[in-house]
């Protein structure tokens, strides 16, 4: 029972040894900055080097909205990190992953997107609350638990959906089968037995990849920006 306690020599990083555009651990990501990145506010935990942070759309950076954001959306939620150094990003100890797009597109829940390279452009999805990244480059997203990838056909709890790539937008699926039949009738009339909480899913079909987090607990929603109020445009929901 006695003897030295086993203490592993901890890994100490510095500006040279921090990973280059890779995870430090499942919850922290190290960006090798040489130029610009877009960050959601509040996600920088530490940095080495000469890095300036600017609000987007402010003064000289006005043109960035046109170049990378393509819409008058949520600019106040984003900052530009500009300079040279190593930048550590994290989000409330949630799992953090980087994704590489090669002339592709991926739609992600607005609250899950942490940062992206300016070579990607960010657009509002037709689906309210989601953002679509288009082009070639790297972005970083957080999820509550590891991200799990599934191929359609699959039905997903709305709160567990992180995003999807390449496949068509999902449709709503309602499951009220248990309301049929005699017992179901009694349930429907009396409310006895309650609801399963699984009456509604997002239904994905076609070719692509669906990203699911391991819990139905949402990350804090971010404003995905207003859409023009006009006929034929789905509302913000």
């Amino acid at each position, binding site marked *: 029972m006695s003897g030295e306690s086993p203490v592993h020599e901890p890994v100490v990083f510095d500006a040279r040894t921090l990973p280059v555009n890779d995870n430090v651990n499942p919850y*922290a990501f190290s960006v090798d900055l040489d130029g610009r990145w877009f960050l959601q506010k*509040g996600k920088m935990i*530490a940095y080495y080097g000469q890095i300036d942070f600017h609000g*987007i759309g402010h003064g000289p950076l006005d043109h960035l909205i046109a170049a990378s954001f393509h819409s008058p959306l949520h600019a106040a939620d984003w900052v530009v990190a500009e300079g040279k150094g190593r930048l550590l990003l994290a989000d409330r100890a949630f799992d953090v992953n980087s994704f590489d797009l090669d002339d592709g597109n991926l739609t992600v829940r607005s609250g899950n997107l942490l940062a992206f390279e300016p070579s990607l452009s960010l657009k509002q999805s037709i689906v309210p609350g989601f953002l679509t990244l288009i082009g070639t480059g790297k972005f970083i997203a957080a999820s509550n638990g590891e991200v799990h990838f599934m191929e359609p056909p699959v039905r997903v709890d709305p709160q567990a959906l992180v995003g999807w790539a390449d496949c068509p937008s999902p449709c709503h699926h309602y499951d009220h089968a248990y309301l049929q039949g005699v017992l179901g009738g009694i349930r429907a009339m009396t409310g006895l037995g309650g609801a399963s909480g699984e009456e509604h899913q997002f239904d994905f079909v076609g070719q692509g990849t669906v990203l699911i987090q391991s819990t139905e607990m949402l990350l804090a929603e971010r404003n995905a920006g207003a859409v023009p109020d006009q006929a034929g445009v789905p509302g913000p929901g």
Partner: protein
Amino acid sequence: MARFRLEGSKVLAVTLAGGGDVVKAKNGAMVAYDGEMTFKKLTGGGDGLRGMVTRRLTGEQMEVMQVKGQGTCFFADRASDISLVRLNGEKLHVEASNLLCTEGGLRTGTTFTGLRGASQGNGLFTTTVEGTGLAAVLSDGPAVLLRVSSGMPLQVDPGAYVAHQGDLRQSFQSGVNFRTVLGEGSGESFQVRFEGEGVVYVQPSERNTLGGDL
């Protein structure tokens, strides 16, 4: 001599041999034990009268218990990750709420840390641990250890700061060319700049940040 062992990354197992074998731990952080254990509330937290007075003045409520006995006691705190730090005479600075457990031979006290605490809204003081032995430090997610050396200063979000060791100077950086577009928030953010020679522990979370919005 207490023996520290991590069970996974979030539970600390401390085996005590009985007699004068003792550790100090964060109040209420015991989740299980076998053998015989006794628990005692330590008033004041820091050592001696000065520590007590300092705590009274600073209002830093570091609730500490003394654990004594023979067997193994398991400590955990809200699913936080745990780092073991071995001290050989150096001093460890740590946020009071991030200190889970210290070996009996270590002394704890309080020091003034300046404005960083102010931006975090939890007082101007942090806890220091000194002596020879092991300390267990909590973080929200596994801590990342970052070295500071001459010519390689480090900037840290106050909410992500957990602890530091070495000969480091802290300074308070504000308004790093950062302004919000739509006039939301204070329009300024705060960072702590560390210079000198040492190691800073940061957590992959900025949960406590009140002052910073970056």
